[in-house]
């Protein structure tokens, strides 16, 4: 039996939806990958997956980082937070197991009580899942503006391969009517399957991963299916996009995903941040897009494909509008945060990330 695509494969809102404002956040501390290798292996054995990763400070978590990214998004949007009808935070490191991050973020940015404020979870695509939901809320006309955030303070077990890359950071997006947007999200498409590549049980501190499941059947399968099916349904090829952003657990995976989908190194360059900030999990595709919007020109099309273990990918086609030129200067750019950098050693990292317990 041949599998056929559904007739309306693309998720396309009734009312065109735009990005009204966006904002990034990266904490200031950096842990070089060579430092992790020094502690656990006495130095680098072969290649390192990234150069360094961003690490949150002692007083930072997904809530505080989301607040700053959201404030940047509001500054670019030029709307009052009271106009928001949703404040959605996607993460796999919400500070509380039970107590929403969204309500506190909403109050801190000055949103009113008339909002949806649930938290989203789907490993590294929790942020883009919230973005698709925000497209639905705005595109149906139920609400004028919705805020979707992807943010993480990712943790790897000490000594595990993930410890080199598990990082902190992310971005926030305010969606609204396309005519008010600095870019239009033309449509999205999601591809998911039950895949046991990475998980964390309810009371476990660190995640587990099924070694042989992380590459081909998980990351590459879902990213390439989501990307190629969107492009086939839209009638586009890689040449139609000025830029592309792929989920970035390390440096090589997004480079290879780009190659498989026909994109060049230049097309992914502005959004490829994992070498210098690491894998920000639910924040990764979202902050790759914010760095790309920081340099895009009106008329540019951007393809974004996230990936979350478990597993699935959300793909978006975005058309950059005229308002980008003026609005991107109203808040800190992604590279401004990346330039703010204090290198730390493994001992400081262990203290900042709560790996040393006093009681």
């Amino acid at each position, binding site marked *: 039996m041949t599998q056929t695509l559904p007739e309306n494969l693309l998720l396309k809102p009734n009312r065109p939806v735009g990005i009204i404002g966006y904002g990034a956040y990266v904490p200031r501390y950096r842990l070089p990958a060579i430092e992790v290798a020094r502690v656990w292996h006495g130095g680098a054995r072969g290649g390192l997956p990234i150069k360094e990763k961003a690490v949150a400070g002692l*007083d*930072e978590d997904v*809530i505080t980082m989301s*607040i700053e990214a959201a404030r940047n998004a509001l500054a670019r949007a030029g709307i009052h937070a009271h106009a928001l009808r949703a404040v959605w935070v996607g993460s796999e490191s919400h500070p509380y197991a039970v107590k929403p991050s969204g309500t506190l973020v909403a*109050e*801190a940015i*000055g949103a009113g009580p008339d909002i949806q404020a649930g938290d989203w979870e789907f490993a590294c695509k929790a942020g883009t899942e919230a973005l698709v939901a925000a497209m639905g809320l705005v595109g149906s006309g139920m609400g004028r503006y919705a805020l979707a955030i992807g943010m993480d303070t990712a943790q790897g077990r000490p000594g595990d391969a993930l410890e080199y890359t598990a990082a902190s950071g992310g971005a926030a997006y305010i969606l609204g009517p396309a005519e008010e947007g600095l870019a239009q999200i033309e449509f999205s498409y999601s591809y998911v399957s039950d895949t046991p590549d990475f998980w964390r049980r309810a009371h476990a501190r660190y995640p587990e991963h099924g070694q042989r499941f992380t590459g081909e059947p998980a990351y590459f399968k879902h990213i390439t299916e989501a990307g190629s099916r969107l492009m086939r349904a839209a009638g586009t090829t890689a040449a139609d996009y000025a830029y592309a952003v792929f989920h970035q657990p390390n440096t090589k995976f997004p480079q290879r995903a780009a190659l498989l989908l026909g994109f060049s190194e230049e097309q992914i360059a502005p959004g490829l941040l994992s070498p210098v900030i690491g894998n920000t999990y639910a924040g990764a595709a979202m902050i790759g897009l914010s760095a790309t919007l920081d340099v895009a020109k009106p008329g540019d099309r951007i393809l974004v494909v996230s990936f979350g273990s478990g597993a699935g990918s959300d793909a978006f086609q975005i058309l950059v509008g005229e308002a980008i030129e003026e609005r991107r200067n109203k808040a800190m750019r992604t590279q*401004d945060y990346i330039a703010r950098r*204090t290198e730390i050693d493994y001992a400081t990292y262990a203290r900042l990330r709560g790996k040393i317990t006093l009681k």
Partner: protein
Amino acid sequence: MEVPRHWRLKQQRYALVGEVCPHCEGKIFPPRDVCPHCGGEAKTPYTFSGKGTVYSYTIMHDAPAGYDENVPYTVALVKLEEGPMVTAQLTDLDEQGVQIGMPVEMVTRRIRQDGDERGLLVYGYKFRPMIAGAR
């Protein structure tokens, strides 16, 4: 719009929301409903820009309960650009440390946890050195 007082108090802690005096335009923080400049009634909420300068500071090596995981940390008197002075922790300090007159900006951070790791997390304003960048 009349904002309930309890909500304004959380706003005060999360986002530096104070008051502006309708009689003399004086900016008030923390909110106290009476203008310290002219004595008139002042209940209009006002969100401060969050920008200011360090007026003086001290480094805490012995912290009260709930703050001990952060020692040593710096507490400063910050003069807001709108006038009022607030006491707050400084955060994200680099190797250069703190200087009197240093420009700082408000960020919302974790202040402490109530009791042990089972307790509530308390969030509020701190100040960090101004970051260079577009704004």
